[in-house]
């Protein structure tokens, strides 16, 4: 199987988000950038499928030069090679623009069987890239995947999806796009020898212009424009109860009933 995994570099989830002084974005100073946690599940699943069905795992990432660190982490997990599309001149494209760029990068090569993505990236939390890429490629898709099996011929996939209060089984023909959810697998840690090996693996650098895309046009064609950011309103000062548990519990119930009015 020839599998592409679309990966994104995001601020570590422990990051305390602060805004740029003009509210146009977040303050990126001092942020620790990591591989999107859900992408780790996607990479792990791709590696398992490669081990079962042979083939190769190719990481594809879009972003500034710093994303190479995330790419190297994925390569150290065991991916074979990577394509990095720099965001020069296209840093402000919207979800559709990003998907078009990723699809253009995929279209440089033939014979893909599967594209895996994380079910969402924990920065903009949009959860759009997987279905957008699937729509643009005209491939079937399933997001929030908790389990999957590929048939012996490598032509069909059975995936389990997590719904609200339910799980769903989906049959897909390949090629397809799948979005990985936590619980799909346990991502492996890169070993030291694999980290060393990853440094020599191929990371092909390309750009929107190399891919035949007009960056200025992509930016002008944006359908979703971010106007600004704000922090959530501060929460009120807490009322803290101490002392005898039974008394504290009775007081809490009164407060929830009379003051918060939610009982």
């Amino acid at each position, binding site marked *: 199987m020839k599998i592409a995994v679309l990966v994104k570099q995001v*601020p570590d989830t422990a990051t305390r988000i602060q805004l740029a002084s003009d509210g146009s974005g977040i303050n990126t100073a001092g942020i620790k950038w990591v591989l999107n946690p859900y992408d780790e599940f996607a990479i792990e699943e791709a590696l398992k499928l490669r081990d079962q069905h042979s083939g190769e795992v190719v990481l594809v990432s879009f972003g500034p030069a710093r994303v190479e660190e995330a790419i190297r982490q994925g390569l150290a997990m065991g991916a074979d090679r990577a394509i990095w599309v720099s965001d020069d001149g296209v840093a402000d494209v919207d979800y559709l623009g990003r998907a078009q760029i990723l699809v253009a990068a995929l279209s440089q090569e033939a014979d893909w069987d599967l594209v895996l993505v994380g079910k969402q990236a924990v920065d903009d939390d949009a959860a759009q890239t*997987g279905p957008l890429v699937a*729509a643009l490629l005209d491939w079937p*898709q399933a997001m929030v995947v908790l389990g999957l099996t590929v048939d012996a011929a490598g032509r069909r996939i059975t995936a389990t999806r997590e719904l609200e209060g339910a799980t769903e089984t*989906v049959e897909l023909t390949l090629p397809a796009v799948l979005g990985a959810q*936590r619980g799909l697998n346990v991502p492996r840690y890169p070993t030291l020898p694999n980290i060393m090996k990853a440094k020599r693996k191929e990371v092909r650098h390309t750009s929107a212009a190399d891919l035949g895309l007009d960056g200025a046009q992509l930016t002008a064609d*944006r359908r*979703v424009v971010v106007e600004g950011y704000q922090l959530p309103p501060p929460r009120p000062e807490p009322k803290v109860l101490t002392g005898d548990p039974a008394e504290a519990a009775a007081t*809490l119930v009164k407060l929830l009933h009379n003051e918060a009015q*939610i009982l």
Partner: protein
Amino acid sequence: MSGILVVLEQWEGRVRRVGLEACATAVRLGHGPVSAVAFGAGAEAVAEAVGGLGVEELLVLPDTPFDRYSSDAFAEAVAEIVRQGEPSLVLFGATAFGKDLAPRVSGLLKAGLASDVTGIDPDGDDVAITRPVYAGKALQRVRIVGTPKLVSLRPNVQPVGAGGGPVARVSRPAVEVGAPRAVVTGTERNDETVELTEASRIVSGGRGMKASENFRLLDELAAVLGAAVGSSRPVADEGWVPHSYHVGQTGKVVSPDLYVAVGISGAIQHVAGISNSKCIVAINNDPDAPIFKVANYGVVGDLFQVVPALTAALKAHLDAS
């Protein structure tokens, strides 16, 4: 059609609540008549539920291939209905269904989608949109350029008013779609538990619960409250509870009326995931636990005493009222 189209998720005539929230939001926006579309067996049966909210027309696609969800066929059908009816705005629920479907429709129509939106208000002919990013650590204001504008709404945020009466019209749109290539072949529903993202009350446990079997205390409290049970991430990673319990930045982001955090210290990822809760109660033996900084009410004490006491006090309160 013009106006606003709401894409509903229904099964056996039951509409997911966020669909009702979307209908009420569409009416509130006041941008023309509101239509809704429902797929699969039982689609007509939702007419009463949505009509009472002010939906004028219900489009139904009850038959094959729409009797089973397929992202490709459903997206083609929604895209075709939008091309025919030219609504200015299309609303989805940001559930597993809506999150799968809406971006695919966006790709087919090359129309802008704002996903998991918590704030939407009329702004002249346009809409002003706010959506949480970084799991709620910040809010993003976005504008969608051109029409149609696609929006998926986070469940449990928009109010639903009361009402009555069926929709004015139920019709079957003529849409042709290709053979589905991603087809649902089975669904296992767990109707006994309340889904966290839709729950109005949640009781969550963290490391302070000490062991899997102690979640029984939370189950008892949840039963009295009619609440769903959740957890912090370490507890799900330890396997004390299923992964589906995990509330936080890389788990479920929730917006209940009441969130009770028991034995949860309040890691930044967890706090982000609950920040949209209307009222947070923290129970912890450490008065310096960060969870108290975001709580409306806190009880400092041994949870193994406080939780049973709270369950008993709630029972007494409910019996008396």
